[in-house]
């Protein structure tokens, strides 16, 4: 990818390439995006589901309308089958 092809916007409103990206935008991408491949022993135990579970209380306030920040518990079991 050539970032050069995208000049910074002139109006200075948004986006702001120079500004540090917001952590929440980064976590949207790093915790729900990215290729999921099963790591070695370490990750096959401490799978990314652990990240989700651990972060649940931390990042997003849980309510009945929003029971799970990054995928339901049901989705987590499927991840165990991701094969590297």
């Amino acid at each position, binding site marked *: 990818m050539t970032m050069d*092809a995208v000049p910074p916007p002139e109006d200075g409103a948004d986006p702001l390439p120079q500004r540090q990206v917001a*952590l929440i935008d980064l976590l949207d991408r790093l915790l729900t995006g990215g*290729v999921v491949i099963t790591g*070695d022993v370490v990750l096959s135990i401490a799978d*990314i589901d652990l990240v989700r579970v651990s972060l649940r209380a931390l990042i997003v306030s849980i309510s009945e309308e*929003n029971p799970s920040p*990054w995928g339901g518990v049901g989705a987590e079991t499927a991840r165990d089958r991701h*094969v*590297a």
Partner: protein
Amino acid sequence: MTGSVSYVYGVAGPSPALDDAVRGLRGVDGAPVRVVAAGDVAAVVSDVPAADFEERPLAAHLEDLDWLEAVARAHHGVIDAVAARVTVLPLRLATIYRDDQGVRAVLTAGGAAFRSRLARLAGHVEWGVKLYAEPAAAPDGPPGGSGESSRLSPGRAYLRSRSRERTARDEAHRAAADAVRRVHEAASAHAVEHVRHRVQQGPLVRGTSENVSNDAYLVPSGRSDAFLSAVREAAGAGTPVRAEITGPWAPYSFAAGAPGAEDRADGADGENRADGAREEAAPG
């Protein structure tokens, strides 16, 4: 390598440009970043302390927002630097292998899928578009009511005022939903793939406006300007939403489709979902 494990940031095609991109680059914990190649795919890797990334310490660390932020920013720093030079497939945060042998094994096993996804993403960037509902205008009449409502009993006046607020809120939601649709249509005209992220809520959210949509679009680099103009126009003055655009990002939200997804139909990736319903890799 005793005491360290291999943290993989992303996958790219091996090239001199990739070697250049990682030269001098520092990753998690300030460790030097290197390329681990196998066949015609290569991983962008650095060593991280096993003591921090084994199961138990990792679980503990992930409860620590400062630690998480440091790792997330280091990961992004590496991906961003590499993406500026070559097409890169970002991996999920904290993808760890015991050693480079494990990294090579996954590159070999997933080589075809990595290559096909890299080819798809080449020449594209990701843009984030978050829409916020502009605060609805206050329902007519101050709370407690004047005019007509002042002739009502306090209880009825309260109920009427609540009902008006509800109506105004419903209308605002409908108007915002319409605007979200219009912006999405405008954006989609210039995008080749789309992912809907969960709307942002919780303590990390800045500001007070309500986030009503949180989308990512995969856009050919050459069409970024047209994309941005279209989004700004569709969410411009006179609409009940305000757009916050982020990017260009490396294609984090569109990296899915690599290993494990080879058997998924190629055409199925037009509308990925990143919220609760999405599963990035096909089962099995």
